[in-house]
């Protein structure tokens, strides 16, 4: 009886507020769209600016559409003008970044998977302390390791090289990849592993036959996270490399800051888009995993 009356009261309440609801919904959409325009505005400006000539840029405003699809600035940003020295363009640095990202993502993901596997399925006394010990690496401000890292790379003879950056990104990716895999494997029933051990399966066999086949989602999350972090890195790139070994973010910054000639905003914007495209594509194609990485990786790291 009690339930019935309160349900009736509830529906009455719903009816009464119908008009206010409608107004509220309009307000809701208004605010949501307002913010959507704030977020989309820079991307729109970047795209239209990159398609204009400098003349059009001077005459119009940020929002004016270009007169046509003119990809000249994109060509200049990617391949330069071909006049040799002083002509900076992104193509070689884009490949530098690829050469840096692929091995660094691979090694850090692999080490993280192995570490996460041991920490959850081969537990030992004090393993949670080991995890905490590794986890703290997610949070250190990298400024506190820049100076010794620069020395170390010098001693190893790999400063100012792509190999050096691969090492740096692999090492400082381990805390994150470990966190991802550890949190994923913790929810895999340990009974599976125990049963396999009784059947005589060894350490690696259990990993490759039982855990790896069900790891696809977390591998995707980890690879996307690492890819985005390393591709977007500027601090390590700008500190440990210069000139020809620089990754794309460093090259982009140099291009935009170079004050040799007249400022070409269209080329700047085309360059910025080129430097952002790979991670944007990943985000659009695999947004779900991207967000999962952000919320679980960044929730703790």
């Amino acid at each position, binding site marked *: 009886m009690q339930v019935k009356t309160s349900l009736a009261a509830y529906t009455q309440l719903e009816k009464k507020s119908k008009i206010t609801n409608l107004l509220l919904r309009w307000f809701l959409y208004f*605010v949501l769209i307002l913010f959507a325009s704030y977020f989309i505005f820079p991307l729109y*400006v970047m795209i239209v600016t990159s398609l204009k000539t400098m003349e059009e840029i001077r005459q119009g405003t940020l929002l004016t559409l270009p007169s046509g699809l003119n990809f000249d600035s994109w060509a200049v940003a990617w391949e330069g003008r071909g006049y040799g020295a002083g002509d900076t363009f992104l193509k070689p640095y884009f490949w530098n970044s690829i050469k840096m990202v692929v091995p660094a993502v691979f090694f850090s993901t692999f080490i993280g998977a192995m570490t996460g596997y041991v920490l959850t399925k081969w537990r030992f006394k004090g393993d949670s302390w080991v995890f905490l010990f590794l986890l703290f690496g997610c949070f250190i401000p990298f400024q506190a390791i820049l100076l010794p890292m620069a020395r170390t790379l010098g001693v190893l003879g790999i400063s100012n090289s792509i190999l050096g950056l691969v090492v740096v990104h692999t090492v400082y990716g381990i805390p994150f990849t470990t966190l991802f895999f550890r949190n994923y494997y913790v929810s895999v029933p340990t009974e599976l592993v125990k049963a396999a051990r009784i059947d005589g399966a060894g350490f690696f066999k259990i990993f490759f036959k039982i855990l790896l086949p069900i790891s696809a989602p977390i591998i995707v999350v980890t690879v996307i996270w690492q890819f985005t972090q390393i591709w977007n890195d500027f601090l390590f790139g700008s500190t440990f490399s210069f000139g020809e070994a620089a990754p794309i973010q460093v090259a982009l910054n140099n291009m935009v800051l170079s004050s040799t000639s007249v400022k070409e905003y269209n080329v700047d914007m085309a360059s910025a888009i080129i430097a*952002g495209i790979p991670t944007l594509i990943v985000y659009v194609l695999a947004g779900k995993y991207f967000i999962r990485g952000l919320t679980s990786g960044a929730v703790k790291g």
Partner: protein
Amino acid sequence: MFKWLEKNLPKVVLAPAVGLISWFVYGFVLWTFYISFTNSKILPRYELWGVGNYGKLWASHKWLVAVENLFIFTSLFLIFCTVIGIILAIFLDQKIRAEGALRTIYLYPMALSFIVTGTAWKWILNPTLGIQKMFIDWGFESFTFNWLVDREMAIYTVVIAGVWQSAGFVMALFLAGLRSVEDEIVKAAKIDGAGLFTVYWKILIPMMRPVFFTSFVILVHISIKSYDLIVALTQGGPGISTTMPAMYMTQTAFHKSQVALSATSAIMMFMAVSAVIIPYLYSELRRENAS
């Protein structure tokens, strides 16, 4: 030998990660800490010199400007990201059409690097051809918006770009938090006569305490480390008006060749981050052990 390996295989596999992190994280931080007590200039020197660098750092005008900027930036960045993030999350949680598309739009800046973000905003905010010109061309002839080149205001342009980059992330955290609340709780409150506003203000938002905590930690962490955005947007200028600690650290080390002083500033940053992170890790660990 073989038997030993078989027995200790898990620990052998764990060794690379532990070894690398011990050396490259803890060892390096200790090295930096040690160097902050020496008198190193271009090259590290290992004779101890004392705490002089700490005094020198806190007497440095540039460092004080950097710290002040960090406080301004962090507080505004926190407030705006959190407020915008919560509003967007609550509004999106009302069975909105095209929720997926809107979410994608709010969050995509997170996929871009701070260099790309800085480059874009630098162009938008430049007084000659950017927003200022847009409004003037629209007929607001006395419109001025030159914060980017104004010593007093430039730090706020960093806030604008930073919030643009990170607010969507806070939205994602809160949306996930709101979605994990049981429907029954909201329904029960409505039956008791609570309006939508009351439901959020009195019940749901207080329930989001862990999400507040998490986003606070992450945002503070981002802001203490912020370097790229400043490099791309203002290069610390005009003058030194937008310098931040991370920038002070690299400039002191690599342009001014004051290695010890630079290490000192890095240690101050490390301590600031630790002050936020250690309590956080501690509470996370306790929560995990409790469940």
